[in-house]
Structure formats: C-alpha cells, structure tokens
C-alpha cells in the first residue's frame, strides 16, 4: 500500500515535470506558440470548451458512432465466432476468408464509406464496425473452442443438452476471452470513428480538430486532441473496470486479485 502511494506520487511528479518542461520551452520562445501552444493555454482552452453545449454535442456524436459500431461488431463477432469455434465445417470454410479480410486496413474503406453512406453517421458506424469486428471474432473463436477436458467430460457425463452446453458452460467459459476482444476492439473503433470525422468530415470531435487547425487556432486544436485522448483513456479504463467487476468470479480474474 505504501509503495503504491510512492509510485502514484512519482507518476504525478513525472507528468508535472514533463508539462513544466514543455511550458518552459514554449514560454521562452524556443518553439513557436503558433505550432505548439503552452500546456496551460491548452488546458484553459479545454476548460472553456467544456462549458459550451456544442462541445458536448460533438462528444455525444463521436460516442454514439463508437457505441453503435461496437454493438454491431459485438453482435456479429460473437455470433459468428461461436459458430466458427464450435462447428469444424464452418471453421474450415471461413479460414481463408478471415485470414484475408482481417488484415485489410479498415481505413482503406473510407472512400467506399463516403460513396455508400455519404458524410453522415452511417460512414462512422460502418468503419467502426468493420474495424472492431475482427478482434472480437478471433477472441470469440478462441473462447468457444477452449474448454478444458474436465469440463468437457463433465458435460458428457451429465448428458447436458446442446443448448445447456452452450448457455451454461461454454458461454461463461468464453467470456474472458470475448472481453479481451471487446477491449482491443474499443480502441480500434474509436480510432476509426475519429478518422472518419477527420477525413470525411462527419460531425464530431475529429472534425473539430480539423476545423481548429484550418482556423489557425492551435490551442483549440490541442484542446480537442486532449479531449479525444481523455475520451479514449476513459473508455479504455471504464471497460477494464467493468470487465474486472463483471468477471470477478472467473478463475483467471480471481487469481489476479489475490
């Protein structure tokens, strides 16, 4: 406990020192403030931004795109992944397709998204879902497949019906693996939503960054970047906390706690 406090104090000190160093470099004029505004200016601008309703509107639009994309990806990824993981025929039939489609950089589909969905909400959702589905699919396949022999034998001995096997054994067993996939996918989906807003110009936080850049307001641009970073960090830590709480009962999480 004491060590943890020292480490925490250390991180705060390092962060403060780094910010102070940047501040000093900018204030003394070594770096032009037009390119790189002082951290205090950026934070002040972010605070000013957060009092405005439009800011929250942009944040909401970005979050909505992320959430809808993630929901589609989770629904598709978990269903298909479970099917592929359990059925050897589906596994064989999908192998080459998945191997080829998975490394496709989702951003390559931005031009297609513009054509089909225009510059609105649909583009964001499509790109986020396409990028997020792969980690969830792969982790679901592993999750559905990995079952230790004791569990397998127990299911056989108890003559569990296939439905019960799926819902009361395999589904629970797959959860940590799926949760990892979701956490990885969450980061990817946010990157894609922001990229879509940046390049396509769909309304949202990414577009605000570009708008600030064109308006030659670097402090505003960095304030938005900081806001996006905080959102990404918040989503990641939030999901991690939910995962740890919801899966407390699982052996791999119990081991980590003690």
């Amino acid at each position, binding site marked *: 406990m004491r060590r943890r406090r020292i480490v925490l104090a250390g991180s705060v000190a390092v962060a403060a020192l780094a910010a102070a160093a940047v501040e000093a470099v900018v204030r003394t004029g070594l770096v032009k403030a037009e390119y790189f505004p002082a951290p205090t200016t950026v934070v002040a601008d972010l605070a000013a931004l957060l009092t405005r309703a439009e800011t929250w509107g942009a944040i909401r639009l970005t979050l909505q795109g992320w959430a809808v994309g993630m929901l589609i990806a989770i629904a598709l990824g978990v269903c298909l992944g479970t099917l592929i993981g359990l059925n050897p025929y589906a596994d064989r039939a999908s192998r*080459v397709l998945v191997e*080829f489609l998975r490394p496709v*950089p989702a951003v390559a*589909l931005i*031009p*297609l998204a513009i054509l089909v969905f225009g510059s609105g909400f649909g583009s964001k959702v499509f790109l986020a879902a396409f990028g997020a589905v792969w980690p969830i699919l792969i982790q679901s396949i592993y999750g559905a497949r990995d079952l230790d022999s004791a569990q397998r034998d127990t299911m056989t001995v108890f003559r569990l019906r296939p439905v019960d096997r799926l819902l009361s054994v395999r589904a629970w067993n797959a959860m940590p693996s799926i949760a990892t996939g979701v956490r990885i996918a969450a980061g990817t989906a946010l*990157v894609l939503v922001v990229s879509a807003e940046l390049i396509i110009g769909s309304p949202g*936080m990414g577009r605000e960054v570009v708008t600030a850049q064109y308006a030659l307001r670097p402090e505003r641009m960095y304030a938005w*970047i900081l806001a996006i970073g905080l959102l990404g960090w918040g989503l990641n830590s939030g999901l991690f906390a939910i995962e740890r709480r919801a899966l407390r009962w699982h052996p791999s999480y119990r081991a980590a706690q003690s």
Partner: protein
Amino acid sequence: MTRRTRLLLEFGSPLLVLAAVAVISNLKLSYYFPPLQSVFADFVGIWAEEQTRAGVWSSLVRLFQGLLLATGIGVIGGVLLGLSRTASAMLMPIFDFLRCIPATALIPASILALGIGDASKVLLITLVCLWPVLLNTMDGVAGVEPVAIATSRAYRIRPGDRLFRILLPAASPRIFSGMRTSMALALIMTVVTEMVAATDGLGAFTLAAQRSFDITGMWAGILTLSILGYLLNLALAGIEHRLLHWYRRSREERT
C-alpha cells in the same frame, strides 16, 4: 472430416464468395459496385503505370521507416523500463494515457508543426507504433525467469552478454507480438496520413479516385491496400516463424 472435404471447404468457400461477388456485381444493381472483372482489369492497369509503383514504394518506405524507428526506440526503452519496476510503475499511467489517444487525431497537429512532407507522416507512424513494442518489451523483460537473471549474476556474465543472450531472447516473443500489432497500426496510419495530405501513395490514390468518381479505380486501390495488408502480415509471421522456432519448440516440449 476427410482430407478432401477439408480442402474443398477451405478453398471452395473463398471461390464461392468470389463467384457470388462476380455475379452480383455484373447485375449492375449499384453504380458503386462495378463488375468484378473491370476492377481486376483496373488493378492490373494501375500496376502497369510507373506512377502507381512509385506511389506504393513511397507508402512502403514511410511505413517501414516509422515501424523500424518505433521498434528501435521501443525495444531500448522497454528494456530499460523492464529492468526497473519502480520507473515503469511510475511511467505506466502516463503511457496508458498517451497510448489511448486515437492517433489519427494527432494528424492535424503534426501537419501544423512539420508540414505535409514525409517527416510528419513518419513521425506519426513512429509515435503510433511505439506503444505496442515498448509495452510488450517492458513486460517481456520484466517477465524473464528470475532464476535466469540470478544465474547470470552468479556467473558474473557481462552486461552486454546478459542483454543479448538472456534478456532480449527471452523477451523476443513479446517483442514480436508487439510488432505485429504495430504493423497493422502502421498501415492504418500510412493510409490515413496520405488521405489527409499527400499527393503520392496508395491512400491518396484511392481517395482521389473516389473524389473523381473513378469507382473502379477506387476499388482497385482498396484491393491493392488489402493485398498489401495481407502480405505484410504474412511477411512478419514468416520472420517470426523463422526467428522464434526455438520458442515454439520449447513450448511444445513443455505441454
């Protein structure tokens, strides 16, 4: 399942999908999905052009510059931080925050600071690729068998040998898994930076084709990028397979 059904399923299904796409696209239901054969024809056509090859080359050069820089910095930093638990614990919250910033949001900032040239693109690719390599190396080094380190101390093995013969080999599976993540990120960043501001490169080509309503050209660009992503992944997996064969063998023996 017999061997024949297996092969039939494995290679029959992609062919079936391809055939379905070919048939459906030839029904000309939508202007946005041109017939498959014209996309392939365009794909061959753009590769015949000197300009495309130069564009692909410049994309690849930027990608590898960024990836190699990131790997270098990431491995050195990761080893140093992996050796000091206190330092890594102190820096972790900061890294966690920096890692979570969606990298594409930084593109306008890097354009403002460094312009639209190669430098700003390579810097961004490096920045994005750094985290997976750094954090994985750190974990890999911190997770080296304590016995191995104690033995090397007891035998007074020189620090150089300790680094190259114990720490780095032990961390290499983790370093590679970081590089695989980074490779995917590098390709994304290469494409997006080119779409935002560039005149050459595949990302710029594909977006320009869409903007001038050259739909087959756009699809040819998407196809090229997809194949590139696949090949890069395959190449890295191949290198990993060769370099880490000892690791796989030792794992198989253990299980």
